């Protein structure tokens, strides 16, 4: 009991420190960065959506390592969920699963629309809200609904992981392409004075690769959980 009371007092003290440091927030935080992105963002990157402009051009280095973390986490889930060969007779959740008829009928109507919407969100990531990460999650949901309809069709998870590794190498090579054309790494490979339409080739390409990578990673994680539950 004494431990909990002292913990509450400690957390209250941390809250007090935070609230005193946030008082002069207007001095710490200024709008210089926002004005820079608003004035130069479209010319530099060719992207109307400034969030896409940041994570695919100004901070592409961060996004590459973030895709790498996704790959490492998916491989970790795959490696941890390896089955013991002794448990041959274990009944998995997958075998007992019976999908309701109503679910099957409605999801057959719904999944093409979801797939189309996910691809729209991926491809229009530089013009409207969206991008590779969000669209990849939508596409993964649509494909998992398809998997739920006919559960006997098995997805080979190791093959998915191999494709994902190759996609990560493709992502790195597209990001390194600017070393040849612009003489600097991790930026757009179209020259700076190119038109916005030309620059968006790079954005669409990278959004499609990231979207495919996120979708495959989420499918692999979900399938591993389905095969683990028993």
């Amino acid at each position, binding site marked *: 009991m004494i431990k909990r009371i002292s913990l509450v007092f400690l957390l209250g003290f941390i809250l007090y420190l935070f609230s005193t440091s946030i008082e002069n927030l207007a001095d710490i935080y200024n709008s210089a960065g926002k004005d820079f992105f608003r004035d130069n963002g479209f010319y530099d990157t060719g992207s109307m959506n*400034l969030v896409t402009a940041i*994570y695919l051009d100004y901070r592409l280095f961060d996004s590459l390592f973030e895709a790498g973390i996704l790959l490492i986490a998916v491989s970790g889930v795959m490696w941890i969920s390896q089955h013991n060969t002794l448990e041959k007779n274990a009944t998995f959740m997958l075998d007992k699963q019976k999908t309701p008829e109503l679910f099957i009928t409605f999801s057959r109507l719904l999944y093409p629309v979801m797939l189309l919407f996910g691809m729209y969100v991926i491809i229009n990531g530089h013009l409207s809200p969206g991008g590779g990460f969000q669209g990849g999650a939508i596409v993964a949901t649509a494909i998992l609904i398809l998997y739920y309809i006919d559960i006997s069709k098995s997805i080979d998870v190791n093959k998915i992981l191999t494709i994902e590794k190759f996609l990560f190498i493709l992502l790195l090579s597209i990001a390194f392409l600017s070393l040849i054309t612009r003489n600097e790494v991790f930026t757009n490979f179209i020259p700076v004075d190119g038109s916005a339409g030309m620059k968006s080739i790079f954005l669409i390409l990278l959004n499609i690769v990231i979207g495919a990578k996120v979708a495959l990673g989420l499918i692999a994680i979900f399938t591993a959980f389905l095969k683990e539950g028993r």
Partner: protein
Amino acid sequence: MNPILSFIVILIGVYGLATSKNIIKSVFCVTIIEAGTILLFLNFGVYEGGLIPILNAIGIEIVDPLPQALMITTIVIGSTITSLALMLCIKIFHHYGSIEWKVVLKGDK
């Protein structure tokens, strides 16, 4: 949308992490901390009348796009970290027969 309120959410997660007796509850507390961090970051650069950072008209006032771009990566990484932790929970349950911290830390099967 006060920074102090979202910091309180983070502190609630820290309190739960320190006092929870179940491993699944600890994983939930990590996700609560992550949600508080996302709320805290999205507070910065937001002001009344600021629009979403998409330049589809000339001369609009936008909010700061940098915290939003950082939080995209946080959401994706957070989901993968949660899935990795839950998979470890399943393996711990199969090995020890329980997911209470007390049983697991004692160490015998």
